[in-house]
């Protein structure tokens, strides 16, 4: 798409990625920690803010693009992934980040997840998973545990939660990680690694809702519960082991990289570019395009 390959690397401090907008989140929200981890990870990567597109859907966490100096797109509920894919295919030189909540990614927008994975488009998708709908004030979410009582499950939820980690692994995601703002350095590292990964990277962040979340899901609880996968001796190139560990979602808080495909499939956005390049010489000049319809 005739965009010159512009991928600048320069020195930027985390503050360079911070916009003037004040977050609307409740004091103590886990998303603050995710936001500063993103600033720090982006600083580590070094792409200037204007070469980054940051897309989200709807929800508390989906406000996040506005708090950065990247080109942001706070879109509609559940549709961040399709929009991000359009951006990446239109201009593969951009660094494209996607963020949202568990409702956005695994309920209303859940149908898009398998497809972005099988295309392996080079996006980094950060889900702030808090097992509750915060923006609409405390309803059941797709990752809420069975039995949870909320304003829309007065007598307790009757359904099992989605397991986001197992879900994306089963669909064939090549990079799957989990973090928590209770471990900021760890979170910064996996976001940075996710961005550097050549292809679609999925990062589930256990980001507590301080207002509607359960007491045992708060940052303080995370600090004692979290177990780093590396300390367990997990080999991130072992997909089956990653799936076995992912089964513990909801019971254990593992942090780090579950799976990093040592031999990832080609990136869709690269294939698109190659095809464009290969086919360009066969183009009829546009002012003669109707000649395609000459009768034979």
């Amino acid at each position: 798409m005739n965009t010159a390959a512009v991928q600048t690397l320069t020195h930027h401090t985390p503050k360079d990625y911070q916009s003037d907008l004040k977050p609307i989140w409740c004091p103590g929200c886990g998303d603050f920690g995710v936001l500063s981890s993103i600033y720090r990870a982006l600083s580590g990567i070094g792409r200037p803010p204007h070469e980054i597109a940051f897309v989200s859907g709807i929800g508390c966490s989906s406000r996040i693009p506005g708090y950065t100096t990247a080109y942001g797109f706070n879109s509609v509920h559940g549709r961040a992934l399709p929009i991000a894919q359009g951006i990446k295919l239109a201009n593969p030189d951009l660094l494209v980040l996607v963020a949202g909540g568990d409702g956005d990614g695994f309920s209303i927008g859940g149908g898009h997840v398998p497809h972005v994975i099988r295309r392996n488009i080079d996006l980094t998708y950060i889900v702030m998973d808090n097992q509750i709908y915060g923006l609409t004030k405390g309803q059941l979410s797709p990752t809420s545990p069975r039995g949870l009582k909320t304003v829309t499950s007065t007598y307790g939820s009757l359904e099992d939660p989605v397991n986001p980690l197992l879900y994306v692994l089963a669909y064939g995601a090549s990079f799957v990680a989990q973090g928590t703002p209770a471990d900021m350095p760890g979170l910064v590292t996996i976001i940075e690694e996710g961005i550097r990964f050549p292809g679609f990277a999925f990062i589930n962040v256990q980001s507590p809702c301080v207002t509607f979340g359960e007491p045992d899901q708060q940052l303080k609880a995370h600090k004692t519960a979290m177990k780093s996968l590396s300390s367990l001796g997990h080999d991130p190139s072992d997909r089956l082991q990653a799936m076995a560990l992912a089964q513990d979602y909801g019971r254990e808080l593992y942090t780090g990289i579950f799976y990093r495909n040592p031999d990832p499939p080609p990136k869709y956005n690269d294939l698109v570019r190659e095809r464009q390049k290969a086919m360009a010489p066969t183009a009829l000049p546009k002012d003669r395009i109707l000649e395609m319809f000459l009768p034979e």
Partner: protein
Amino acid sequence: MHDLIIGMAGSGGDGVVSAGESLITAAAIEGYHALLTKSFGSQIRGGESSCRLRISTRQVFNPNGTLDVAVALNWEDFLRFGGELPVDGHTVVIYDSKTGVAPDNIPLAGVRPAATLAVPIGDMAKQAAGTDKAKNTVVLGLLAGWFGIARHSILAGIRKKFGKKSAEVLEGNERAFAAGVSYAEANPLSGGRSMAAPENGGATQFVVDGNEMCAAGAIFAGCQFFGGYPITPSTEIMQFLNREIWKYGGAVLQAEDEIAGVGAAVGASFAGKKAMTATSGPGMSLKTEMLGLASIAELPLVCVNVQRGGPSTGLPTKSEQADLFQAIFSAHGDTVRPVLAPISVADIFGITIEGFNIAEQYQTPVILLSDQEIGQRKETVSPIDTKTFELIERRRPTANELEHYERFRITESGISPISTPGAAGGDYLASGIEHNEQGAPTASGEMHARMNEKRIKKLHPLKQRRDLFVIAGDPQSPLGLISWGSVAGVALEALDLARAGGLQVKLLIPKLLYPVAEEVYQDFLGSVQAGLVIEQSHQGQLYRVIRMFVDVPDGVQPFNKSGSNPIVAREVLDRLQEMALELQRRRAPELQPAG
């Protein structure tokens, strides 16, 4: 004859549609104008299929009604198409004698055709080519022989088509064609029904359907991204772009659903590319939320709806003009989206370019309302001078404006410069939430009102675009016709018939359906006392939309039908003649001497 309408029906393997394709190609090469519409049963393969071909020495704009020639390879299949293949007393009916039906006993209730010809089509095919697969080639020979159409070009087409196969197949088909021609010559029709030579013999003509023409227009306009999902009858747009767009630096994403298709197009537009999606009725419903996003984020986008019968799955393979209300009113919130409609296959090329231009200039989604008739019918199209099209690009910020960039700055025109990711200094937040001039989310009702004003005001100049209307006929006439989309082709023909019959009529065809250009309608209706708004929908949607915005004289009535029976020019003319008489009667008392 100057105009010949042939209808053919058979079962899936009989190749009647392929025969229609051969005929339109041959007609185009010889310089005839032609339209080919195809109709199928709902089976995916096999089942009945039919086509209608209208060949004319002059340009024609619609498939018209009753057949001059009806070809029935078997009666069961033919009759399944009912009103799509109407036969009357001037029709020549050709059918396979093998069906065992006696000529005076053909199953057309109450109709005595001008001629009924039982031809051993299947046997001739077997004899000539050794297979009854060549039945359609025999039919081509019969048609060429009896109606004098394009004999040499049809034969050349057969040679090209079967030349790729074995010599045996080619020779068999050549013999089958010759057998058809000889049969016709040996059994001449009484009354002579031979086609006159085309007025523009030998001129270059393209043969193309509306969906492909739309896609070609998109490429010409600079479209570099298409996101979509297969849905009848729009899929050919995606298929064509999937073959071609890469050559022009673009990409097609066949998305997982309609929403993702339009979503990716919105994303590509945000990233600075001209982007498009296409769908039909049910898909349009799914895309509606995303169109609202494009409206508030002020992102250019072209969304094509190739209309079919609805609601829901409705009639997926049949044309209708029943999505006008949806196109105009389905948005949530106060928003205006330009709605355009082409009137023919040739026209959709320019209308698509216009769609991109309006989208880019006004930073808005544009809905292009095509219909199955235009989308899937093949038409001969004369060369189009592409130099006449100006291409418009979105207004990007100047270096100065990037110093203190405000994405949604409230300007005199309502249009604010739009930056592109990658441009330093131009970063902003695009959002579905209401925002201030800088793009920051806001809950201020006052800001919302100002932004609504900006977003709607910027489209006002469209109402002055008189070039997006066809205005024809006698400007002072008290009789007026209004029509749109493919059905406008019927109105154009009715106008010609009226003129030929000495009836003064004027015609207005809006290609811009929304926003409603009140002044254009008011000026047109100034002289009108009676008339018709012709469209293919049950409610008469255009008639009602016009009345929302414009005072329409009581004498102007809706003339609308839903279903797949095309409205024909002759019945429009009949209504106009009645209206003219009524006007005369009403005027008569004024002419009586007082007393």
